[in-house]
């Protein structure tokens, strides 16, 4: 998958409590969550993001509470992809299962600056910053497969269909 946009630059250990404060956890509509992203620490963030933008962050992005509102809120805000030096693994897992592409690259995290033009190819791991080429770890094949399907929901549907087809006719599931 390929993405083109501008860099939204963030630092190290950005936790999910600052992305989506606990009091919003009873909101379940992604569009409602998107309005509150970084509300307390960077109230201008929501206004700055344009559809297609790529977050480039430092180490341990998404640490803390396993809070799906964080990746689905960012996706609803228009973030197309996230590149970070490293990710909290719960955030990493949630993003993949929601079909939000997510790549690890300390060198992109180091080189990128706010507002810069960025292109990302999740299959090859190639990242262009204002035309200069950098490398990210390509996604493992199984994970790329889930991303290609737009998340784990379609993977489950496919798996259910495969299992139904494998049932001998007349047998009940």
């Amino acid at each position, binding site marked *: 998958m390929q993405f083109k946009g501008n860099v939204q630059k963030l630092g190290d250990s950005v936790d999910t409590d600052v992305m989506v404060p606990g009091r919003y956890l*009873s*909101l379940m509509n992604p569009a409602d969550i998107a309005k509150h992203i970084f509300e*307390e620490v960077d109230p201008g963030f929501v206004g700055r993001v344009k559809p297609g933008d790529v977050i480039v962050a430092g180490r341990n992005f998404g640490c803390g509470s396993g809070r799906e509102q964080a990746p689905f809120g960012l996706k609803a805000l228009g973030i197309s992809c996230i590149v970070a030096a490293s990710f909290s693994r719960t955030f990493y897992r949630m993003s993949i*299962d929601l079909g939000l592409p997510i790549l690890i690259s300390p060198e992109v995290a180091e080189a990128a600056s706010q507002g810069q033009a960025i292109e990302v190819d999740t299959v090859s791991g190639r990242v262009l910053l204002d035309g200069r080429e950098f490398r990210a770890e390509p996604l493992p094949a199984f994970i790329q497969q889930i991303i290609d399907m737009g998340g784990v929901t379609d993977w*489950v549907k496919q798996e259910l269909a495969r299992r139904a087809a494998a049932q001998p006719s007349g047998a009940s599931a």
Partner: protein
Amino acid sequence: MTRQTIAEKILEAHRLDERDRVEPGDVVRARVDLVLLNDANGPVAFRHFANMGGGKVVNPDKVMMVCDHFAPAPSAAGARMLGDMRRFATSKGIEHFYDVGKGGIEHTLMPEVGLCGPGDLIAGGDSHTGTAGAFNAFGTGMSWSGMAAIMQIDETWFRVPESMRFTLRGKKAAHVTGKDVILQILQDIGVDGALYRSMEFAGPGLADINMDERMGICNMVVEAGAKTGIVEFDDITRAWAEATCKRPWTATVADADAQYHSRHDIDLARMRPMVAKPYSPENVVAVDDIRHVHVDQVYMGNCANGTMTDLRQIASVLKGRKVAKGTRAMIVPATQKIYREAMAEGLIDIFIEAGAAVSTPTCGACFGGHNGALDDGEVGFATINRNFKGRGGHAGAQVYLGNSYVAAATAVAGEIIDPALL
């Protein structure tokens, strides 16, 4: 073939792929023993479940649902989350459903009711699912869509983690608890020191750390970025499992020649009570290094530190003393069973006599949702697991983390203090 860590052995035992052996870095398809949902992640997981086709939960007996985050409901919005839980549990035939007043905080409740055991693979929607590692299980917090997937097809995927080995030796000094073990480790390795890895705890020092305090350690492995933290099976685990587990279990120890990312020695005898300062759980110092920090509120109890061991530690400090003027203290036993045991032992009376508020089990104050949230400019001390900006309520509040002895002593002094100095 040997050379395997505890995490590798548990994932290998649960794999569905046709492979003989799993290695760190492999992505494997696996079947879990239990899915743990609460009222913060359950309602989102139910939406995913419906989007995947709805229908039956393929194995309802493998699902445990606990009302703890928005329980008792703080608002109409919270009440709706709890309502979603009840409706899903009823319509899908989920027997292991724990409503307000019937259970407690999930990570303490799950082992209490015997639904996790040695060798188990447990997936939860909450990041502190690693607490199950105290019982020699592989517990991990994962995606809420992943939870829904397991309820649909009884399988999921895991990347096999590398492991770090922490060998504990010696005996703890007075006022040192399992909480200090993990705070010390966070000071040493930082909040991304175990990213994507399993942290395994072993060694002769474990004999001095009971199951409650092991929960305190494993609960916070996620604060170091770990996928899970697992205590090696020993005599204490065996005694607990024989008395408590409702399902068959498998004692799991690492091979002597297992391959680790790194090995670390922890000398319990040299440890001091530790405190994490705002705004990161890695911002850890010894309690002796903190001077005259006034505290507005002390909160004791959460998914790891609302155990009988914690309540006894708190009572040993509060007995015959009062909570300082200008400071409030809140104590939250982690489960209804613990609450009753604490009453029977006379601990609740000690707490109320000291001037502390005692509440039914809830995660409310820990995530800043309700039941003890902090205002702008306030300082809190808590036995909880994280102190990020905005976590305990207002983003202008500050939260310090520490063990139950230090928390109780801080409530009495009105400022953070070494319990030995009271």
